[in-house]
């Protein structure tokens, strides 16, 4: 139990639809000053995103990659929101199915 990794909530939304939500161990976002790694319990931050890929290491063990353009990311109270104009999902189809499952079982994934 002591080795349990801390997690955080991640919510990725595009202007016209929600893209992905779930829990993750770490997220890398393309902030304006270069890549920015976000770990659970990060300090509250609001940063601009130009263009790049968001990498999410989710609690289900998958690495999700999203290509995003023009937006921002906000982190507070252990929850990361990435809001972007356009977003394409680069992950494999079977990963997409898993991401849906992990979004649904977000709370129980903490207990792993």
């Amino acid at each position, binding site marked *: 139990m002591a080795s349990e990794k801390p997690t955080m909530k991640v919510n990725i939304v595009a202007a016209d*639809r929600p893209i992905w939500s779930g829990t993750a161990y770490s997220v890398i976002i393309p902030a304006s000053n270069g890549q920015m790694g976000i770990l659970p319990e990060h300090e*509250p931050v609001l*940063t601009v995103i130009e263009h790049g890929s968001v990498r999410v290491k989710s609690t289900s063990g998958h690495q999700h990659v999203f290509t995003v353009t023009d937006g921002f990311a906000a982190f*507070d*109270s252990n929850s990361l929101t990435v809001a972007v104009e356009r977003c394409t999902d680069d992950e494999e189809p079977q990963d997409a199915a898993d991401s849906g499952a992990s979004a649904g079982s977000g709370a129980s994934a903490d207990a792993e």
Partner: protein
Amino acid sequence: MASQLAYKSRIASTKSLSKIFNAQEMIASSHIAKARDVALAAKPYSDAISDALAALVAHTHLDHPLVKKKDSTDNPRVAVLALTSDRGMAGPYTSNVLRETEDLLSRLDKQGKEPQLYVYGRRGVSYYKYRNREVKATWEGHTDAPGVEVAEEISDTLLKAYMAPASQGGVSELYIVYTEFINMVSQKVRLLRMLPVEVVDKEIDMSDANAEEEVKEAPDLTAPLYSFEPSTAEVLDRILPKYVQSRIHECLLTAAASETASRQNAMHTATDNANSLVDDLTRKLNATRQASITQELTEIIASADALNTTEE
């Protein structure tokens, strides 16, 4: 009394119209669900932007031209965006919006302002073209399913007009006239002042022209202390236009849902009317037929009578 043939042809054409109305109604009701889904899908994004903006409000003085414009007091030009529909057959949808827009324009004229018109939707565009009214920019062909792209286009155009200095034809305010979707049977025309941005968006009471002076939300002191990257000003610079865009998109979506609902209602009424007209005409047709039969009978009896009397 019209001939039976005329009645028959009227009944046939009314019946086919009724079929068209019925089909339109069914199309509209299937679009409603889609419009609602699209509006729901866009909600998380606008929520995220509102949250981010709320965080910014709590930490900065919001010293940005979009919130408070410097030369707004002596610049009489204001922009008015009217959201109408591309197609007709939507009952009073477009005419309600246009009436409200005309009201607003004359009110602004009285206040000594110079309203500049922006129109979205083909019906509104043709209305103003017919009346030779100068329109700054128009957008057509998207009212059924307004995407992010058209929202981006509109907000870019309007922000450009807003950010331009007064000497170069910039505007000091932006009003949007749109139709809010309340439920399937009721949609209400609303007037919203989009720019300068008020972080708490209150709708302006249409009866009260002085309601424009509204207070900004008091900074929420419990909000987490953010660090802004690369800088507060730059984040504000990026988020405020996005906020405006997402608000405009929201307006477009609710207007699209209202249009569909309004069309469905109108088509439902039209179908009912057509059916009652068919009933009416059928009744008249029967009466005519009966009358002609009666007349023929009378004629036959009369002539038979006449023959009998000559024989006697």
